[in-house]
């Protein structure tokens, strides 16, 4: 672990690079997936189209995706923007299904009564559906965060700097400690972002904290 102590600066720099690559996609995928997921949940036709498309996008391996994107949208191969776009695509692909499922999981009776007491579609979405789908959305976003942080390391093979650079560099120079440091840092970063999301959830969804754990039903 001597390597890690003597190279703390390097690890720190790569961590910052990594954050720049992974935080925007996490936020963007949530923002973009919301309307798409709502649409997917709302109409049968749009559901089929949107969910199939996101499933296929998610099936595309990341390394080829990084290479194909510049040809499609004109980004430079090694630019952070190229990676941010690719990671956002994966995040949206994952999150759209979560949003659709989350909205579908909202109790029909609650929705009906909201409509019955006079909520419009718009206010119903913001004040009823979205908060009630909140726990599901949060769980989905946590998955997006962890997988984005992990995926961002792949950018290193095309030369985009991130914690993944510690893998390629460590491999080429034969330094195991560097690779291990990279893995540990990536996992810690993922845990950190995950924890931040959990904390944000506790603030945004205060009622979920109060849920009592229901007693296990014993057979009568």
């Amino acid at each position, binding site marked *: 672990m001597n390597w890690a102590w003597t190279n703390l600066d390097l690890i720190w720099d790569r961590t910052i690079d990594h954050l720049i690559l992974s935080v925007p996609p996490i936020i963007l995928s949530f923002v973009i997936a919301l309307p798409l997921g709502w649409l997917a949940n709302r109409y049968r036709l749009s559901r089929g189209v949107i969910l199939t498309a996101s499933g296929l996008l998610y099936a595309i391996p990341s390394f080829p995706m990084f290479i194909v994107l510049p040809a499609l949208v004109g980004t430079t191969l090694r630019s952070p923007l190229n990676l941010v776009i690719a990671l956002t695509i994966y995040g949206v692909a994952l999150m759209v299904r979560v949003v659709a499922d989350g909205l579908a999981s909202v109790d029909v009776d609650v929705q009906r009564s909201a409509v019955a007491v006079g909520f419009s579609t718009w206010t119903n979405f913001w004040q009823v559906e979205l908060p009630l789908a909140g726990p599901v959305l949060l769980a989905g976003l946590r998955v997006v965060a962890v997988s984005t942080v992990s995926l961002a390391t792949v950018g290193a093979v095309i030369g985009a700097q991130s914690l993944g650079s510690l893998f390629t560099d460590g491999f080429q120079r034969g330094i195991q400690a560097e690779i291990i440091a990279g893995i540990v840092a990536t996992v810690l970063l993922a845990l950190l972002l995950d924890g931040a999301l959990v904390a944000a959830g506790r603030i945004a969804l205060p009622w979920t904290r109060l849920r009592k754990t229901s007693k*296990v039903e*014993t*057979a*009568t």
Partner: protein
Amino acid sequence: MIEFRSVSKQFPDGTLAVDDFSLTIPSHRTTVLVGSSGSGKTTLLRMINRMVDPTSGAIEIDDVDIASLEPVKLRRSIGYVMQNSGLLPHRKVVDNVATVPLLRGVPRKTARADALALLDTVGLDRALADRYPSQLSGGQQQRVGVARGLAVNPNILLMDEPFGAVDPIVRAELQQELIRLQTELGKTVVFVTHDVDEAFLLGDQVVILQEGGRIAQIGSPADILANPANDFVASFVGADRGKRALHVERSDGRDVLVDSDGRLAGVLVGDAVPGQARVTP
């Protein structure tokens, strides 16, 4: 004859579901265990086919301690009907009914033919035989469940709130069907319910349970209604109020029965016959 001898059951989480329970269940009769949740009624039922083993005490069927029997074999000789039917969703109705005979090695052809005959017995159209359970209504599913329970022609039929999940009209139908079946077949039926009306309707012997499987009273429905053993039983069966607390009033020269809320409950059509407490509703 099924006998419980000082049976207790403590679950691993510490719950004492049944405490020192003794009971004799006569053959060819319907015995109903009735109680609210936590009374241990389902646990008691599931002990009879060793789905649950008692912590202490013994259960005997025809003087054989069932602890000495192999559970799987024992279960295949006892019919079991549960709430929500418990049918296998990936098997057609006829195959569901034939499940246990097939397990016992009955040839497929015979088992299917028997299963079709059983559909008649429980009042189901044979056209439903090739449907999947999900394509049936709740009431139909329960009938299939009963047919499956009867498939090995067992002496004992265990029924765990079998009609609890269907609507009241279908429930009434199924109850009448069971009464008809029982007069034909004369099985030893052990029936669990939380519904006192159902217990009184179906039971030859009714066992009213309190928490922990404590027996509050055993008897025929008439015994229990006429002489509730204590306040708990009286209030549980509602003998002191509503439609069970009837009195006679004269109206237009006839005796009519009126309940405690003043609602008309029926007409008295004959003089009281000793030992027969049935009222035309």
